[in-house]
């Protein structure tokens, strides 16, 4: 029985990606705010002191709590369906909550699962900073952003010293990939909670997935993403397909084909219709 305090544990398994659990630090020093209208990367205001947030990256599936993951999907406003969203009362585009049973099935059949944990206190700080900076961008004074130091008790100090682990941490980032362990793989569902975005966590997740796939000799990795995720993947080193293939997605729906005895399945907003059954002559 071994105890490991932090650090990275490498295991050699037969031709399969090794499971690593790591502690890392991400900094908001290089945090960029993307101005959506201008599509320009603005440097973060120097007033806000950079936060160093310790995170725990895990590739062990058992560290993932399905309920927490479902909440992460909702918090990140991420949908598993390609045609996902509806517009809620406030005018924001929202996605339907993910079905937990389907999520469990998907998780059990994903080849690579990466989860990132962070201490709840750090998440709270980040959320406050993020919501204050996003709501009052013009007149945020230094005093508002740097909270007055409160006296820390021994318990608080101890909590600060403890490394973040999946058990005492909150799930803040996730990514998964499906592979055939031979030729190809597809990355799905990369997400980080909004308050901790821009710090490189998503990039760490993608790099870890790519590394694990490369360990099992898969180099052809695809990631189907929407327009606003495209920039992210480009920054991670993904580009247009080397062979200039066109991505296509199935979208035949009930409105366009009228045939009896058809299978109709729901995929987010759309109702997809299956091709007719072929009978032998």
């Amino acid at each position, binding site marked *: *029985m*071994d*105890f*490991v305090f932090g650090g990275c*544990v490498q295991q050699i*398994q037969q031709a*399969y990606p090794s*499971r690593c659990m790591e502690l890392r630090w991400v900094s908001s020093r290089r945090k960029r705010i993307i101005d959506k209208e201008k599509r320009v990367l603005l440097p973060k205001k120097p007033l806000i002191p950079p936060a160093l947030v310790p995170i725990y990256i895990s590739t*062990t*599936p*058992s560290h993932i*709590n399905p309920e927490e993951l479902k909440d992460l999907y909702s918090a990140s406003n991420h949908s598993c369906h*390609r*045609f996902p969203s509806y517009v809620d009362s406030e005018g924001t585009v929202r996605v339907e909550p993910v079905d937990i049973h*389907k999520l*469990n*099935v*998907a*998780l*059990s*059949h*994903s080849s690579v*699962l990466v989860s990132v944990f962070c201490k709840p206190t750090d998440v709270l700080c980040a959320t406050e900073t993020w919501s204050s900076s996003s709501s009052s961008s013009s007149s945020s004074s230094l005093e508002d952003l740097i909270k007055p130091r409160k006296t820390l008790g021994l318990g608080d100090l*101890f909590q600060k010293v*403890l490394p973040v*682990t999946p*058990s005492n941490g909150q799930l803040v980032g996730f990514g998964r990939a499906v592979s*055939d*362990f*031979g*030729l190809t793989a597809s990355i799905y569902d990369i997400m980080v909670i909004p308050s901790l975005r821009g710090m490189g966590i998503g990039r760490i997740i993608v790099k870890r997935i790519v590394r694990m796939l*490369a360990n099992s000799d898969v*180099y*052809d990795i*695809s990631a*189907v*993403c929407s327009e606003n995720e*495209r920039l992210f*993947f*480009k920054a991670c*080193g*993904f*580009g*247009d397909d080397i*062979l200039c*293939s*066109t*991505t*296509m*997605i*199935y*979208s035949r729906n009930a409105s366009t084909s009228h045939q009896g005895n058809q299978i109709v*399945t*729901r995929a987010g907003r759309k109702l997809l*219709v*299956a*091709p007719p*059954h*072929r009978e*032998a002559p």
Partner: protein
Amino acid sequence: MLTRNAAPPSSPCPLVSFDFHCQMSDRLLFPHNLNYGLDRGRRKHESLRLRAGFWESIKSGFLKNNTTQVIETPSAPQEEEEPLPQEFVLTEKTEPNGAVEQIIFSSGGDVDVYDLQALCDKVGWPRRPLSKLAAALKNSYMVATLHSIKKSPGSEGSDQKKLIGMARATSDHAFNATIWDVLVDPSYQGQGLGKALVEMLIRALLQRDIGNITLFADSQVVEFYQNLGFEPDPEGIKGVGNLEPQHHANPIMLLFW
């Protein structure tokens, strides 16, 4: 196998456990990794768990004998609906010399890797390592094949079985699927066989409520897939390929059509 749950999380002892979970076959079965008993005796160490995972607690509630040993049968408690293999005759043709040629569709996925390699050569695709082909076939969600069986007139048991088409799909069994490697022998092209292959795959996937079906089409075949109900790049979705050619030992090109 003993499963010991360590002290509750508020304990001041920061223990980071690590797993020696070995893979069973090549699949990662998420709930099984929580159950040490499933590891088929290949595990060498005990692991300390920092907390009883949510799933673990649910599982131990289900299985009555849950004191220290959690044994799980190889079949998962949750439904594992693999596509039911079906096989049927797609077309039947009688040749002038009396021989009958049947084209059999099969979704059982029993493909001889050497046959497949030969078929890829016929179509003009670059060669890929056989071991990788075999692994890819084994781990695909569904492999649909077309075989041609020629029965010569008069003689029994001298059927010629030939692989003439294949299509495969990978999936996470719940939300997404991607169709790869659709190919049909050039001498059998133009008869709607490729269309049949893809349609069967789509049908099987939709039957299991897998709604996101994607594929990466070469420019010559975009129209072929459009006729089947695929839309190119809807809503700004782009497939991006990983740009790290320096990692390739031998550059593996994947052609789609």
